[in-house]
């Protein structure tokens, strides 16, 4: 029996090209965003947006706590059993996300150009 057929290599190559293209597209769009902010989404609704420049600790409901320090965001506490979000790598640039699946909380860093342009009070941490 042959270990590897030619069609296998072809299939693996095709399956590799698709996500690599998606990643390249994401990287390109990330380069257009230099100003960033932290957006916390809980149960599908925006819980709050925060500047990355000031250090602070944010309690998200009763279940999770996250911390902004030196422009990096990490989840410091979660009451779920798997603790995957707490062990996630801290995020600091556009597109970075930490997800707590059990508590349905998403921390993500998004572009902040909109708030900068319109200069709304929304840019101030709530």
């Amino acid at each position, binding site marked *: *029996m*042959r*270990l*590897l*057929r030619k*069609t*296998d*290599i*072809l*299939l*693996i190559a095709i*399956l*590799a090209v*698709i*996500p*690599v293209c*998606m*990643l390249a597209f*994401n990287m390109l769009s990330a380069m257009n965003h230099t100003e960033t902010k932290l957006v916390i*989404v809980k*149960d*599908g*609704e925006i819980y709050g947006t925060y500047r990355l420049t000031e250090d602070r600790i944010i309690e998200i409901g009763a279940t999770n706590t996250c911390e902004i320090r030196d422009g990096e965001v990490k989840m410091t506490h979660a009451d*779920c*059993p*798997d603790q*995957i979000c707490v*062990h*996630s*790598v801290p995020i600091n640039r556009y*597109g970075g*996300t930490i*997800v707590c*699946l*059990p508590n*349905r909380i*998403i921390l*993500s860093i998004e572009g902040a150009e909109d708030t900068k342009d319109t200069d709304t009070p929304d840019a101030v941490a709530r």
Partner: protein
Amino acid sequence: MNVMKRPPYRGGTTTKTAYLGLFMALAILMGYVEAIIPIQMPMPGMKLGLPNLVIASILYLYSWKEAVIISSLRVIVIGFLFGNMFSIAYGLPGAVISLLVMAILKRTDIFGIVGVSAAGGTAHNMAQTAVAFFIVKGFPVVWYLPVLMIAGLIAGTLIGLADALIIPRINPLTHLK
């Protein structure tokens, strides 16, 4: 010819039951081995999927029916023993969909076990991303999907390569092309 497509005769029902029980135990053991690996992956869903060594073997030694049953059962058992309810909720759709993809690809007879397993690993993580998308509103699919697809592809390829070496040795009767 249709007869040639059928898996080779491997004893009666009792033998089959005994062997499938053995495979089941092996899959659970693989789940345990994976649970005690201390390396923390940067993203949820990124893992080697060692139990799939056994599941893909069953797919080739028996048929997709046996593989689906054993695969679903091991996700539940491993979830209760070493995981939690969430690992079952996310693992079960991934396991079933990846097996169906593998069964279909195997049936076309275009790809070998490495290609089938690689596609299965990718499909597994795509299914899990889909579950997350439906459960968590606003889940950042565009960032998670490509990374998890690559992770699944690598894991599936490695599992397939290992199985290509394992299957002929554990059952010399199996005719793999």
